[in-house]
C-alpha cells in the first residue's frame, strides 16, 4: 500500500525534533542541518510553522531535472543513486516544495528516503504534526469537515450517572429533506 509523508502545519510547534532525528538516523551526527526535513516559520502575518518534507511525487520534478538519471522511483520512494549522482544539485532547485537539501559536508543532495518505511521524524514528532498516511486516506479530514460544515451542529447536555456531558448532533430541517 502506497503511503505518503504528510504534515499538519496547524499542529507543528517548530521544535525541530524532526530535523535532529533525521540527521541522527541518516548521518549519525547531532546536526539539524543534515536532515531531509526542515521546519520553516513565518511570523506574524501569516503565522505558520511547517516542516517541509518530500512528497515522493509519482511524476517527480527532481527525477525529471536530473541529467544523469540518478533519481528514480521504486516502492513509493524516489531514491538517489549516489554512484550515478554528479552533485549538480539541479534536483534541489527543481523541487517545487524545496524539500531536497544541501550541506557543505555532503557531496550528495540530502533527500528523504522514508527511512525504509518507518520515518524517524514521524515517530519522534511530539505534536503528531508529521504523519505517514496511506494514500487513500489523504483528504479524509477535509471530506469530514466538508460534511460537518453542511449540517448545523447543535449541542445538548445530558446526565450520565450524575456527570454532565454534552452530545453533538446535526439538525437538518424537514423542509431540507
Amino acid at each position, binding site marked *: 500500500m502506497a503511503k505518503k509523508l504528510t504534515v499538519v502545519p496547524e499542529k507543528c510547534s517548530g521544535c*525541530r*525534533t524532526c530535523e535532529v532525528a533525521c540527521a541522527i538516523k541518516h548521518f549519525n551526527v547531532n546536526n539539524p542541518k543534515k536532515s531531509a526535513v526542515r521546519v520553516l516559520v513565518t511570523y506574524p502575518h501569516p503565522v505558520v510553522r511547517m516542516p517541509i518534507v518530500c512528497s515522493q511525487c509519482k511524476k517527480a520534478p527532481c527525477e525529471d531535472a536530473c541529467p544523469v538519471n540518478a533519481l528514480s522511483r521504486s516502492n513509493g520512494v524516489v531514491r538517489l543513486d549516489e554512484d550515478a549522482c554528479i552533485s549538480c544539485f539541479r534536483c534541489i532547485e527543481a523541487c517545487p516544495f524545496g524539500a531536497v537539501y544541501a550541506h557543505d559536508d555532503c557531496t550528495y543532495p540530502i533527500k528523504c528516503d522514508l527511512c525504509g518505511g518507518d520515518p524517524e521524524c514521524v515517530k519522534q514528532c511530539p505534536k503528531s504534526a508529521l504523519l505517514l498516511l496511506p494514500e487513500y486516506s489523504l483528504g479524509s479530514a477535509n471530506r469530514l469537515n466538508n460534511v460537518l460544515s453542511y449540517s448545523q451542529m447543535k449541542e445538548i447536555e445530558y446526565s450520565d450517572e450524575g456527570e454532565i456531558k454534552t452530545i453533538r448532533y446535526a439538525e437538518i430541517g424537514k423542509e431540507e429533506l
Partner: protein
Amino acid sequence: MSAKGGYFRKYLHCDLSAGTCERRSLDEETIAKYVGGRGFGAKMVWENLKAHDFKIDPLGPENLLVIAPGPLTGAYLPSSGKASFVSISPATGLYGDSSMGGSFGVELRQAGLDFLSITGAAPELSVLFIDNDEEATIIPMPHLAGKSCLETEGMIKKHIGSHDVHVAAIGVAGENQVRFACVNSDWSRNAGRTGIGAIMGSKNLKAIVVRGEIDLPVADLKGLMQETDKAVRYMHEHKYFHMWQEQGLMNVIEYANTQGILPTWNFKDTVFPGHKKINGETMLDRYKIGDSACFMCPMSCGNICLVKDGKYAGAVTEGPEYESCAMLGSNLGIDNFDAVLEANRVCDEYGIDTISTGGIVGAIIEGYETGVVTLEDLDGQEVSWNSDEAILALIRKIAYREGIGDTLADGARAIIARWPEMDKLLLHVKGLEQSAYDSRVGTSMGLAYATSDIGAHHTRAWTIAKEIEEGANWSPQQKVELVIYHQTLRPLFDMLGVCRLPWIELGLNERHYENFFSYITGKKTTLEQLLALSNNLYNLTRRINVHMGATRKDDSLPYKVREAPILTGPNAGKKIDEQEFDAMLSLYYQERGWDENGVPPEALEATF
C-alpha cells in the same frame, strides 16, 4: 570540521570600537571549572571587571556582553535550546544575566563557537553577522534605526534572502537604552531581564545574525539517544504533559489565583476577581491559534494568540505566558485578554521586559492613585487600573523615553530617586523589579528574591509552591536549604544550556542531566560534581556583586512585603516579619559559608 566532547574550545570575541572579530581558543581550565552558559559568561565578565579595576559603567563601551549557550545546547535531548546573555546589568549595576530559548544558541554552537563576547561600541548602528566558520563581520545598517524587534528580524532575513539564519535583535527600547530592554529572537523569544537590550543599544549593536551548520560534538551519541528516549517517554506519559502542550505557563494563572499569590493591582492583593477572563481556559477558548516550542522541546509551552475582534483585532503575539499575563494583566487590574495580548505584543515589538514594565506601570498607577505622582508628572495623561489605552500609551512613552517615560525607562532606582515615596509602592530588589509571585506568602520566596544575584527574579529559586504545600510545619533551616538547593540546581540548567521546565514542571529526574552531560562530553560526571561547580559560580557572582558595592542591605525585601499585609484571599493579612527574615538571612549566609555581611571568602570551593 568537528570536535569531540561537548565543546568546540573556541569563542568569538568582537570589539565593536575597533571593528574586529577574532576567534580565540578556550582553555581547558575554564571549561572544567565553569561548564558553559552563565558559567562562561560570569567568568568572562569577572575577568573584564578585574581588568577595569571594577569600575565599569554598564552602558559604557567597556562593559562586556557574553552570549553563551552550554555544552548541552542543541543536543538531542529535551528542551536543549537555551543560551545565556551575561553582563553587568544597567538595571542593578551588578551582575546580570538572562536566558533565552528558541534556536539562537543552537545556531551559535553550530557556527563552531562555545560562546560570543562583545565589547566596545560601534560608531554607528550596526549588525554582527556570523556565517558558520567564516570570518564574522560587523556591518553598519543605520536604516534599521527605530525598527521594532520583529521588523528588524524580518528585514534582515529579507536582506539576506534566507530563512536559514537566526537573529537576536533589539527594538526601540534597546536603542534608547531603557534599563529593562530585552533582546528578541526567533520572532518572540526574549532574553528579558536585567536590561541586556540596553547594553546592545549602548554598543550600537542592533542585531546579531548567525547561521551555522557544523556537527555538534557529542562523544557518545548512542548513549545520549538511549538516555533521551527514556526522558522523553517519561515526559510524554506525565499526566500534565498535554496540559502543558495546550496551555503552557498560562495554566499558572488559575493556580496562582487559587493559592493567593497572583499579583493584583500592583501587589496590593493576591486574588483577582477578573482572573477567569485572563486565564488559560479563556486563551484556549478564543485566542490561541498555534503552538510554539524552543529547540527540541516536546512541551511546547509557547502559545501564539490572535485577537479576533474589537479594537485590537489583528494583534498577533507569541504569548502571553504566566509572568507577562500576570504583570500586564491582573497587576494592572486589566481583566480584558485583548488588552493583555496587545500589551504583550507591544512590549515584544519595543523590546522591553514585560515583568519590569508591568511592575513599574502598576506602581505608577498606584502612585497616581495615592498622590505620590501628580497629573503633571504624568504629562497630563491620567492612568488608572484597567485603563488599557492609557496604559499602552504609558508603555510607549517608556520605550521612546518621552515625558515621564524618560524617568521610568531608567528603572526602579531612578524612579525612587525622583519620587522617594515610590519606594513603598514599587517592588524591587537591587533595582530589579519583582516577578509575578507574591512572596508575602512565605519567607523562603522572600529570601529567594532577596538573595538572587540578579535581583528580584524567580529564576534562581522558586520555592513558593513547596512553601504553600508545607505551610507552617516548615523550619527556617529547611527553607534556607531549599533556597540554596534551588539556587544551585536551577542556575545549573543555565550553565548546561537547557531549559529547567521538564524538571520543575514535569518532575523529570535531575539525574538525567548528569548522564546527558557525561554522554556529550565523554567525561563521566555526577550531578554532585556539577552542583558543586554551580555553587562555586554562585559564589563568583556574589563576589562580583560585592566588588560592585552590594552589601547585606541589598539582600532586602521590598517595602510592601515587609509592611503591607495582603488584603484578601487565602493569605489575607500575611506579610514577612522583618526580624524573622533577618535571622533567616544570617542562617542563609552561614549555610553558604559567607560572613555576616554576605561576603564569600576568597577561596571558597564547594563540594555538594
